[in-house]
């Protein structure tokens, strides 16, 4: 906190409570939050997706999941490249509750969008916001995100996100907008004691040189 801060420390309660988010092990975080509309939307989507594919949530929603005070219209999600047959099954299952904003034709979505490394967006029917930005992993860092994942347990529900160090590095070194810097700062502050500083520097170095 800066010397001339307008924010009083009296607002902060430094007694951690048992209901506070915590790492259960290296790869699992327990979160006891009251779910908002975005959380429910993402959980709804991955409930179907996980029947067909591995996935990892990246970017802005990760910081929102852990408390950042902002909303978003899109939740970025990476999946390993899947074959067309699996995508068609996934699409038809999703189609019961969600619709794809880009096209209603799954063949076109697979061939023209996903195979060309373009993202497609899924939302609830007739409700384009919020939406899931769904794309196949392409770069080394995409695959690293899928490999270095974290499981976030919220009661009986679970979300899979990419490593916090990779999130911060990507936001600070590649994206770099004000919003991204703020997202990174939020994660840095909340997980100050849990971050692997060497891993973070390693990712930053790679991303800087790419």
């Amino acid at each position, binding site marked *: 906190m800066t010397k001339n801060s307008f924010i009083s420390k009296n607002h902060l309660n*430094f007694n951690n409570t048992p209901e506070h988010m915590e790492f259960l092990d290296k790869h699992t975080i327990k979160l006891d939050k009251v779910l908002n509309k975005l959380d429910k939307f993402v959980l709804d989507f991955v409930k179907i997706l996980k029947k067909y594919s591995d996935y990892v949530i990246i970017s802005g929603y990760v910081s929102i999941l852990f408390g950042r005070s902002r909303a978003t219209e899109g939740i970025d999600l990476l999946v390993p490249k899947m074959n067309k047959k699996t995508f068609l099954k996934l699409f038809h299952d999703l189609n019961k509750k969600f619709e794809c904003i880009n096209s209603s034709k799954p063949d076109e979505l697979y061939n023209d969008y996903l195979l060309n490394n373009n993202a497609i967006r899924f939302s609830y029917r007739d409700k384009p916001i919020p939406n899931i930005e769904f794309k196949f992993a392409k770069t080394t860092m995409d695959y690293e995100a899928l490999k270095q994942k974290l499981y976030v347990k919220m009661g009986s529900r679970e979300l899979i996100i990419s490593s916090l160090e990779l999130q911060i590095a990507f936001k600070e070194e590649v994206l770099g907008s004000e919003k991204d810097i703020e997202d990174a700062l939020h994660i840095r502050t909340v997980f100050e004691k849990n971050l692997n500083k060497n891993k973070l520097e390693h990712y930053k170095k790679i991303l800087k040189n790419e």
Partner: protein
Amino acid sequence: MSKWFDKEKNRRERLEFVRFWANYVKTHSDQEWSKQQKELIDSQL
């Protein structure tokens, strides 16, 4: 710097609040901060 608006000062103040809120999240129960977050997010969607 524009004579109408100090962007750099605004940026610093924003970052200060992000730090404040992150510390609030860190030091309060998940239920406590997430109720406030839910109000903000649900009202925007």
